[in-house]
Every structure is written in C-alpha cells, then in structure tokens.
C-alpha cells in the first residue's frame, strides 16, 4: 500500500481557496447542489470555469490545457463536487475523453478536440453500454462496417447521460468478427448531430430524463474519427475504466445533504444524532485523505490501481450508508417538495442505489482489489 498522509503545499492550498471563493461568488445563494456527478448540465458554467483554466486541467499546455498535476486537478474537482456545482456538461470530456485522446488519439485529433474540451465548448457522452449487456462490456453488438473513407455504424447504446445535450460520444463497436469476445472491438468518435443518430430519453426512477438510448442507423464516421487502433478497443476501454476509479466523485455525492442537514438540524442535535453524524464525518475525513494520497502517488509516478479500487469501493459504500444514516437521524416523512434538505434527501434516497453501479459494481471492484491483494502481497 502506498497510502501515506500527504500535506498540501502552500500553492496547492491557495488554489483550493481560490476555487472555493470563486464558487462562493458564482453560485447563487439559493443554489440547489447537485449530487456530485449528478451536478446539472450547464454549458455557461462550464465555459466560465474554463476561462479560469479549471476545465481539462491536466491537458498539457500545448493542447490548450493547464498542464496541471493530478493533485491540482483533484483539489479543483473536489471543490466543484463538494459544492454540487453544475459540471455535467464537461465532466466526461475532461475526465474520460481527454485522457483517452492523449493516450490513443492522433496528433490531429488532439489538436482539434483538446483545446475545445479545455475551453468548455466540446462536450462528450459515453458510448459503451448496450441493452441486455449490463456490466458485460464485451457483449457489444453495435457494428461498424468499412465504407469508403470511413465506417458505417449501426446499433443501440443505452445509459448515455446527456446525449441529447452533448456533442460527441465515443462508441465501442465491433469492426470485425472474432473468436475471442474481446477481439475485433474498436472505438469511434461519433458526432451526436450526425444523420442516422436518434436520441431518446430513458425515464429514471426519480422522473429525470438526462439518460438516453441512442440508436445509430448507418451513421457515417470518417477515418479521422477512429480513436486509437482498429481492433484494440477492448484494451483501450479497460485502460480508460482504470482511470476513473478513485476520484472524489466517489464519496462527495452526499456533501450537499450533509451540509444542509447541519443547516436545518444542526442547532438541536441530540447525542444520538451527533454520534451518527460524527461517525459519518470521521469516515469522510479519512476517505478523503486516502483519495488525496492516491492522487499524490500518481503525480509521483506510481500506478496505484489496487488503492484506487479500494477507495472507490469504500467511498461508494460510504455514500449509501450516509444516506441511510441521515434519513434515520432526520426521522421524518421525506417531502420531495419541502426544504432544501428535504429535497436533497429525497433525491439521495431515490438515486443512492445507482451509486454502487456506476464504474463497476461492488462485486467487480472487489474482484479487482482481491486479485491485487492476494497476488501481490499486502504491502
């Protein structure tokens, strides 16, 4: 394990306060915080953030980014998530697409996409999941056929958040038949405004409509929109998923809930409520430092994959337990149209079940961590 308490430098600490102050001044007083990743889709906000250099921070300067360290990006993202800021527009582009482009994209693709991503002007969705495939990503049936100057893609993708609002999504598809189910897969960057793309909402349990089904009917994708190598889609996606695991998005979904619990109930906490709340806070305190330690170790050139999986597992379970505990100590009928705390509690109760699903179920994550633990020894 490389988990070590890591102090911030004075400059890092200053960055954190800069972001915090900017958010204080930018978000309206009656702002309703999003639940971490559930922050709203607000292109204006994303662009304003980009003018501060806080979108695509880890993109190198020559591609329009800030060339920031992992810890610097961690601190900015953490403040955004803690505030429940409306980050959904640029989130996938900056967290997932930009690193993939840096790793697998052509120089031309980098020069075209990355500055736009860093400017908060080019938004991406994910194009991995398919109907009836669940967490079995290799069960992809969307198919791309070679045509003159590119590929023609047909199939259906589901759970594509904000596909109705974003510009592109990276589609995992079959480009050749293969004996091996992980073989013959490729990634194509598909313009969501292309002819043949139909986006329809999938209504969620809470009535929200930000998740979509995207049907691709013979959509043309030019050769220069192939991401990485044809046939290497599986390896690329696997690398991409490893990237997303231990960020503060794994434990900060509940921060608005906790803050508003204190705002509405903090004045008269009995011992039982204080104990329950303190226990949550203590755990959060510690998880946050584990996550920060992972960021620091990435900057130091380590590859803390096991640690990242552990933080994600412990973080998502923390979030779900927190909702349940806060509900218990609030001890009320939840009113979805009530106070800010009530509204957030309602949203949390309805959405918490999905938190252990995104980015790999608890079982999948534990499998990864267990392999690393039992294979490589404990330290």
């Amino acid at each position, binding site marked *: *394990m490389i*988990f*070590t*308490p*890591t*102090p*911030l*430098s*004075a400059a890092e*600490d200053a960055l*954190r306060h800069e972001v*915090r102050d900017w958010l204080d001044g930018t978000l309206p007083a009656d702002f309703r915080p999003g639940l971490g990743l559930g922050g709203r889709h607000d292109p204006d906000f994303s662009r304003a953030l980009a003018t501060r250099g806080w979108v695509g921070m880890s993109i190198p300067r020559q591609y329009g980014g800030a060339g920031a360290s992992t810890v610097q990006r961690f601190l900015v993202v*953490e403040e955004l998530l*803690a505030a429940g800021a409306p980050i959904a527009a640029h989130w996938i582009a900056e967290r997932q697409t930009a690193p993939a482009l840096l790793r697998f994209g052509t120089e031309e693709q980098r020069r075209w996409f990355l500055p736009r991503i860093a400017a908060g002007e080019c938004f991406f969705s994910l194009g991995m999941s398919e109907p009836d495939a669940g967490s079995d990503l290799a069960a992809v049936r969307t198919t791309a056929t070679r045509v003159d100057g590119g590929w023609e893609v047909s199939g259906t993708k589901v759970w594509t958040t904000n596909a109705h609002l974003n510009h592109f999504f990276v589609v995992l598809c079959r480009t050749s038949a293969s004996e091996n189910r992980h073989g013959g897969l490729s990634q194509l960057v598909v313009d969501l405004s292309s002819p043949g793309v139909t986006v329809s909402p999938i209504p969620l349990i809470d009535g929200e409509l930000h998740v979509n089904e995207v049907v691709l009917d013979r959509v043309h994708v030019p050769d220069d929109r192939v991401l990485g190598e044809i046939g290497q889609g599986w390896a690329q996606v696997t690398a991409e998923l490893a990237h997303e695991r231990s960020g503060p998005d794994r434990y900060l979904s509940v*921060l608005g809930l*906790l*803050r*508003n619990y*204190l*705002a509405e109930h*903090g*004045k008269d*906490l009995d*011992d039982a*409520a*204080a*104990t*329950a*709340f*303190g*226990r949550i*806070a*203590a*755990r*959060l*305190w*510690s*998880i*946050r*430092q*584990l996550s*920060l*330690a992972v960021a620091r170790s990435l900057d130091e050139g380590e590859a803390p994959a096991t*640690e990242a999986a*552990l933080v994600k*597992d*412990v973080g998502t379970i923390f979030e779900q337990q927190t909702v349940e505990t806060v509900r218990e100590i609030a001890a009320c009928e939840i009113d979805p149209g009530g106070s800010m705390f009530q509204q957030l509690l309602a949203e949390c109760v309805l959405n918490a079940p999905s938190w252990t699903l995104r980015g790999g179920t608890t*079982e999948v994550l*534990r*499998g990864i*961590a*267990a392999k690393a*633990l*039992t294979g490589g*020894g*404990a330290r």
Partner: protein
Amino acid sequence: MSDTTELRDAVADVLRGRCSPAVLEDAERDGGAPTVWAALADGGFTTVSVPEPAGGSGGSVAQACAVLEAVGAAAAPVPVAETGLLAGRLLARAGLGLPDGPLSTAPSPGLVLDDGVLVGSVDRVPWGRSAASALVVDGGTVVLVEPGTGVVTPGRNLAGEPRDHVDLTGVRPAAVAPVDPIAVDELARRGALSRAALIAGAARAVLELTLRYTGDREQFGRPVARFPAVAAHLVQIAEQTELAAMAVGAAAAGAGDEGEPDPLAVAAAASVAADVAGAVATAAHQATGAMGMTREFGLGVLTRRLWSWRDEWGGGRSWAAELGHALAAGGADTFWPTISRGLVR
C-alpha cells in the same frame, strides 16, 4: 513520512519472535512480559515523544504512533502507550522527570488530593499492579504514585491485558506538580489516539495473517482466497486497515514535531479506528472460519485486542459524538472546510 515508517519497522524488528504464543500466554497469566519490556526499553522505544530533558527519547507524536502501530501489530503485552505518549508526556508537561520502568495512567475523575494524601480510587488502570501511575487530580495537579501502592484489585480486558482497580485512599504520592488544566483534555486525546494507533497496527497484522492463511489453505481444490465471498472479506479488511492507518497518520502528523494533535482529527481517528476494529475482526473471522477461533492460530490475540482497545479512552461513540457536536457548532458553512483542511506544508 519515511522516518515514521522506519521507526515502525525498527520496533517490529525488536518484537519479532519476542511475542510468541508462549510469551503471550504467560503474560496473560502473570500480567506482565518482562523480556518484551526490556527489549523495547533498551531501544528507547518506550518513551518516544517524551522530551529528552524529562528523561524520554524525544520525538514527535507521529513517531510515538508509529511505535504503537508496531506494538499493536505484535500484540506486545506491555504498557508502551502508557509509558511514553500518555503518562510520560504528562509528567514532562508537569515538569516532573520520568522514573525508571513502566508507567501507567487512566482517567481519574474521582480522585482528589487532601492535604498531600490521596482519596479515592481509579478504575481499569492498565498494568496498574506493576507500573507507576501518573494521574491528574483536582483537574490541575499531576501526581506520581509508585508501583504497588494502594490496594490493587486485578482486572483485565477481553485480551487478558491487566486493567486493575486501584484504591489510593491514604497514599502519599511520590511526586506532585501543578499542570495547565488543558493537559487533562490533551491526555484524553492522546489516550484515544494511542488506541487508534494500536488498532491500526493490529488491523494490518490481521490483514497479513488472513491473506497468508487464505492464500495457503485449499478447499474444493483451490485457495480459499479465490472464493468470491472470502475475497470480499479480504478486500474489506484491507480497506478498513487503510482507513484506520490514514486517520491515525493524518492526526499524528498534524501535531508536528513537538505539538499536540488537532482535537477534531483525533476525534475522527478514534471514531474510525473503533469502527475499523469491529469490521476487521468480523471479516477476518469469517474469512478464516473455525481455525480463526482457536487459541493457537494467532488471530485471536489480535482480534481480542481490537475488541478491547476500541472501547478504551472513551470509545468510538463518544469521540464521534464530540466530533458531531463540534461540527454542528461550527455550522453548515464551515463543514466542508473543516473536513478537508488536512495537512498543509
């Protein structure tokens, strides 16, 4: 941070082979482990964080916690926490020098000093039968009582470590000195932090033992560690161990080279460590099955300590309540700034 890692490894080296099952059984029966104590004392490891002028080995709270992690991992049945971080540092704070040999201390709310003579008793004093006790009386006075003074009624914790009732009525202390009343709170916090550090160490030892056992042992033709249910237990043990170690490490590092740890960081560490103790013990026993329940297997000496230490110096619940009340008093707007303040260089 590497100095603390090195120190932890050095203490682990000293203890390696010295806390055998036989030594632990003897200690449980006799209430002491003189060879273990001598080895640690010879190396100066029993008074880490007590300033050198007072007779200690010097060093920071973080270094003392590193020693305690190694002590916890070895289940060493000796009052290292009491001698250094707790009583030793208390005596130094009061300007008193350290006597030779093991020291102890415990909360002593009912004890008073009447005309130079003590009245009252102290409950659950670690190794109270054999250690000199440094105690706070009247909220602002430190007294030192020699070993074996007063009427000792032996008691123990779940791990068989001595937790004695000591009636000191009529005893005249060997030393008396005034101390800043805040020293009482500081002692309680160091007490809680010491238990969290011991827990973090024991949890890591449980992790290693459990990984080894489930990796070696086969059932239905493959290592039991490969069964998903067992693997899930292993992952939880690892997660919980890291949570506790991080909570302790961050709180201890925050004390700097000579200072005391931050009150809220200690409260967080105590709360986390208490929960971790239970979770790790449960998962380890599930993963190792019946074998883990036998005395000879070695898991029990660790889990019995986890089950004991989590309740000492206040226990997780009271520290969680303290943290919860403090955060509520701070208000909604300072909640996140407090949680995230961490360490700044």
